[in-house]
């Protein structure tokens, strides 16, 4: 007994941190360190891959750092490429909270950009703020409704939302091409069919002192808002219950249909907004160039971030950096463009595989059971 009390005295006090917080800290560390470990492992595998291709892995590493963060130019390059991915990633991450697997970001992006172009052309004579508001509203609503279509088909007709949202991408691109090559074509765009211009004066500029357009801060803010919505509101809580256990959600009387439609609409709206920003900040006219592949890259972002909008921010920067450094690898090391795709693929597989180790590493488990 004496020994016990002596041991109790000798043991350090939790100093304001209860057991729950300790466990929470361990979980947070796990959530950061497991993907970080997967990333390091991916880079090692990629190094092995380029070594097999006869290229010095250290040189690859050097150029990747130089191309993504090595200078102010490189940082801006990375951030510019990351900007649209923040928003298109949400098109997968938000419906995923309700248990839906939507891969229709590309279609929503295209429809958002196209609708924004129509609004922009219609409001050509209006004041810039009015035109901008009109284009934003058009992009958000059109993108939202586009993906809500997949949600509605799922909820009321039982159509698999993954397939329907994928097919909706092709329909969106076909609509875009039909319109810009037909009724919505600027007759002067001879060999590159495009819509009329929204007017240079109505375009969104860049952040002062940089080459980065406003899509980046908008994307970050929307990701933060999405995180708050999911984690800190009753709607978000209800959505996660619906996504986690549909039967339980039905039992407690949650409005499943409304939650599905809401998350699909918001996801599509985010991708539609990305399309609008692409049009208003970069492209000026709608054309086949709106088919950028950002919608598909967004799926990768959402999965790498494990559908967490907060984690999507660093992940988008990571993919932006890989894209930004791809050019240097091609130009100086003669690696094909596919090399960066291989790296993305390795990271994707490693992150998915790392899901299996959560809760199994003794290091983190000891933290949870300690005390």
């Amino acid at each position, binding site marked *: 007994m004496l020994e016990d009390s002596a041991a109790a005295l000798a043991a350090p006090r939790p100093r304001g941190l209860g057991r729950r917080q300790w466990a929470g800290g*361990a979980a947070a560390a796990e959530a950061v360190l497991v993907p970080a470990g997967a990333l390091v492992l991916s880079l090692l595998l990629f190094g092995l891959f380029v070594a097999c291709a006869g290229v010095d892995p250290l040189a690859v590493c050097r150029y990747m750092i130089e191309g993504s*963060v090595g200078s102010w130019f490189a940082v801006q390059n990375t951030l510019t490429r990351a900007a649209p991915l923040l928003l298109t990633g949400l098109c997968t991450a938000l419906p995923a909270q309700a248990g839906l697997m939507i891969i229709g970001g590309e279609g929503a992006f295209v429809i958002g950009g196209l609708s924004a172009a129509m609004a922009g052309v219609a409001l050509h004579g209006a004041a810039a703020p009015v035109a901008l508001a009109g284009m934003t509203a058009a992009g958000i609503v059109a993108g939202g409704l586009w993906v809500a279509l997949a949600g509605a088909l799922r909820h009321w007709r039982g159509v698999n939302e993954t397939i329907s949202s994928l097919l909706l991408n092709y329909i969106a691109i076909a609509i875009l*091409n039909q319109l810009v090559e037909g009724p919505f074509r600027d007759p002067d765009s001879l060999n*590159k069919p495009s819509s009329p211009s929204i007017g240079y004066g109505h375009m969104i500029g860049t952040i002062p002192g940089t080459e980065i357009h406003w899509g980046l801060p908008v994307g970050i803010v929307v990701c933060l808002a999405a995180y708050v919505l999911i984690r800190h509101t009753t709607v978000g809580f209800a959505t996660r219950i619906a996504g986690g256990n549909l039967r339980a959600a039905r039992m407690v009387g949650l409005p499943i249909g409304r939650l599905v439609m809401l998350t699909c609409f918001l996801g599509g709206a985010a991708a539609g907004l990305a399309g609008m920003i692409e049009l208003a900040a970069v492209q000026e*006219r709608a054309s086949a160039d709106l088919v950028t*592949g950002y919608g598909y890259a967004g799926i990768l972002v959402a999965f790498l971030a494990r559908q967490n909008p907060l984690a999507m921010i660093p992940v988008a920067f990571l993919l932006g950096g890989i894209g930004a450094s791809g*050019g240097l690898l091609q*130009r100086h090391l003669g690696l094909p463009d596919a090399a960066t795709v291989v790296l993305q693929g390795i990271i994707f597989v490693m992150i998915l595989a790392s899901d299996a180790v959560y809760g199994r590493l003794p*290091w983190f488990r*000891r933290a949870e059971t300690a005390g």
Partner: protein
Amino acid sequence: MTGKTISRRRVLGSAAAIGAGAALGATLPFRSASAAATTVGFIYVGPHDDFGYNQAHAQGAAAVKKMAGVKVLEEENVPEDVAVTKTMESMIEQDGASLLFPTSFGYFDPYILREAPKFPKVRFEHCGGLWTPKDPKNIGSYFGYIFEAQHVNGIVAGFASKSGRLGFVAAKPIPQVLQNINAFTLGARLINPQATTRVIFTGDWSMPVKEAEATNSLIDGGVDVVTMHVDSPKVVVQTAAKRGAMVCGYHCSQAALAPQAYLTGAEWNWTELYPKFVTMWMKGEPIPNFYRGGFREGLIKQSPYGPKVSAAARQRADEVKAALTEGKYVIFKGPLTDNTGTVAVAAGQELIQSNATDAKLEEMHFLVEGVLGALPS
């Protein structure tokens, strides 16, 4: 509670260490500025070995690589969005390029147009011929009348075809494509006035599956010579050869893919033009802002004839090619009727291939008589 538990502080500490490492990496001077050589950058929208549009440009780049005092940078698969802007800036700012060849048609507006004023000392040479005097002076655009070579293709096809049914796999119904379809058909009908060209539009520049389907359905319909205007003719050439049809190539030579079935082809001749432009740039001579040409200017060439081309066909094709090279031959010469029976080019009117562009030629929106197919209104 053991000492091995992980605290928030430790997590933050590790994160800070990682951040510091990254910052340190960022400040290290990795590479000094490039040497005094002239650096020339080439940007391709697709793979550089696509047996098509991009390979033709890459062959031009390879010719520049052989020049002394020149460093060549190449980047492939660069899409027509902010990526091409960043690639151009990166070649200029990170690699010191002073002459750029962003080769895809879609790079021009808005990407090159916006970049050129930012870098007044850099020259942007764009393939497509869109420059007008209101555009920045450090942009040049060049393009070739490759439909002249498609016309010669048509003559060879007219001789080779037994059924008189020809096929054309096309990407989009835009003027540059329609010029090729019409010139090819007019060439074939010089030899066989009953010849027809069935055209299938795939809708986009790189659609391998649709291109194979189109080729198959053309051959199913009795077509025995196929040609095309898509970014990479590889699939069309291989499919046609496998089906026993003959084929005329486009962009660059695809003879290696189908040595027996390949008749001839319409090729770009960038291996001539690019070293010329680079030499002018290095000497400080002005490069024309707008440059056009066909056989006469050496911007295009014809693939060597394949084994199935008869002596008569070679002779006739060579005659027309010689006349084109001398500048004495006009392909679109009135009277020409389109395939709906309307007059497309009036009697006495000529759409001449010349550096002073003919609006009627540049805005071509009809299919000549003998083409089976329709245009969107």
